């Protein structure tokens, strides 16, 4: 009889401490030894992980009220502005926001030593953070200025809310031009001097559930060392792209919006990054458990690096000026070997995402489940999958004649 397991049965095993949990790396060897069917029968959960730069990340914070109260018009944390166009003492600190006095790329390439990702890391590490805020004063919020020092313990709420994380596959970046480029894919040397890439491949969450059969809205996950949830599909979620026979997308495809309590997280898994010439961002640790509901799910989780391909994209012209170029695909196993072949030339590869850390995340999540501390969740709603009809849009070029501040002229 074909293997069939429900979420309830798997959770029952987790509670009893009887669940068989392996990482997305370990499952490959088990399948090679036992075959799909036997492995699907034995394994209950496969854990995945990824740890890399994810710019679309940030945290909502409620600071609590000052006395007298203030309606914050602008807020800075260690000099980095947080968005405060929401209620009085709520703000959103984005990972890619720079300090107010950052020299940016005025002396190229800029260093971007401290940004929102560094603020979030410092908050989670329990460090003291300078909080500055200004307001314009109202009858209900008369205060106009706050300048103080806070820690994570002092705020009412702080939760990560990352609009786009865990990209399902990503470009392999090269430079066809004749000067060095400083990009979010790292330094790219001219004349295809190297090739940047960023995914944890066979360990990556969405590459192990390519059609989002088990990862959906409400899925409980490892986020930044604590517990998080999938809140929605991520921005730029584009599942209807070219896929291989194994279902794995051969281009940037699915993404996730993730949410989780910052107060339960660990600074090791939220790390501020500085990309020379590009900007500041944050490495986010994400781990997602995949229930082996049937043999099909096991086949997905047994995906190997050699079965994963990503598109080669030029960052001198192709990416920045949206010029479609067919440069072929890079195989993830070859990318990890340190060299790939492009047009007969052997090219050094530059990773951005940390494979050893991704592996650690999958291992930590596995231990949580084995100890019975972490149960699996059935998604509340599914994410749009490969049969969706999503069009990847660009900003329209229109002339705003007749519109003043976006409104029609009277």
């Amino acid at each position, binding site marked *: 009889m074909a293997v069939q397991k429900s979420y309830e049965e798997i959770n029952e095993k987790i509670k009893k401490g009887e669940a068989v949990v392996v990482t997305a790396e370990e499952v490959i060897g088990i399948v090679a030894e036992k075959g799909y069917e036997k492995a699907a029968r034995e394994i209950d959960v496969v854990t995945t992980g990824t740890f890399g730069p994810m710019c679309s990340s940030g945290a909502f914070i409620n600071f609590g009220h000052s006395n007298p109260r203030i309606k914050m018009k602008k807020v800075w944390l260690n000099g980095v502005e947080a968005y405060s166009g929401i209620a009085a003492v709520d703000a959103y600190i984005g990972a890619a926001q720079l300090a107010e006095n950052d020299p940016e790329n005025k002396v190229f390439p800029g260093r971007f030593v401290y940004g929102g990702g560094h603020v979030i890391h410092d908050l989670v590490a329990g460090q003291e953070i300078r909080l500055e805020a200004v307001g314009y004063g109202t009858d209900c919020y008369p205060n106009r200025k706050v300048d103080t020092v806070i820690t994570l313990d002092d705020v009412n709420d702080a939760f990560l809310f990352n609009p786009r994380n865990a990209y399902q596959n990503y470009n392999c970046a090269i430079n066809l031009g004749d000067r060095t480029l400083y990009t979010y894919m790292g330094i790219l040397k001219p004349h295809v001097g190297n090739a940047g890439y960023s995914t944890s491949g066979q360990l990556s969450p969405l590459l192990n559930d390519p059609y989002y059969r088990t990862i959906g809205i409400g899925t409980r996950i490892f986020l930044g060392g604590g517990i998080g949830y999938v809140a929605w599909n991520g921005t730029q979620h584009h599942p209807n792209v070219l896929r291989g026979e194994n279902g794995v997308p051969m281009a940037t495809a699915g993404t996730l919006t993730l949410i989780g309590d910052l107060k339960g997280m660990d600074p090791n898994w939220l790390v501020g990054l500085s990309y020379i010439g590009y900007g500041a*961002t944050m490495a986010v640790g994400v781990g997602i458990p995949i229930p082996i509901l049937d043999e099909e799910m096991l086949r997905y989780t047994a995906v190997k690096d050699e079965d994963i391909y990503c598109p080669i994209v030029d960052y001198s012209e192709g990416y920045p000026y949206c010029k479609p170029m067919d440069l072929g695909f890079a195989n993830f196993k070859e990318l*990890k070997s340190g060299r790939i072949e492009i047009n007969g030339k052997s090219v050094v590869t530059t990773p951005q995402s940390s*494979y050893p850390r991704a592996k650690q995340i999958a291992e930590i999540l596995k231990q949580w489940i084995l100890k019975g501390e972490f149960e699996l969740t059935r998604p509340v709603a599914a994410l749009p999958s490969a049969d969706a009809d999503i069009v990847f849009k660009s900003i329209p070029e229109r002339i705003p004649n007749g519109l003043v501040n976006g409104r029609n002229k009277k």
Partner: protein
Amino acid sequence: MKNKLVCYFSAAQSEQPIIYRLIKNYDLIINILKADINPQKEGYLVMELEGSKESYEAGTRFMEGLGVVMEPLSESIVWNEQICIQCGACASFCPTEALAIERETMEVSFYNDKCVVCGMCLECCPTRAINLYFEIKEAV
């Protein structure tokens, strides 16, 4: 033999083509890693000097004769394992495989003895886990 040296020059010495002579007269292979001359024309030069034992010794005697103060370059690049997130970007820029990825595990290691202090890793490390420590004194 091969060594990394810090050479300190006075104003008078910095006007002479010392490197040219080291190459031309003593058949030494020279790799300049860093150099600086201040407005008073005093300065230092960090270089790797390579050649046969005889030419190496003759070359350094020549510099001593000119009054150039030489010191071996001690610990220079420091890799902070606690800060490193093991992404491995540095290894692809390291020309000597001092920063190298063990491909089976994808873990990064730093082999100080292979490092030539080119500084490429300093720019490409997004966590700033790699730092340069030069023991350079005030110009002599």
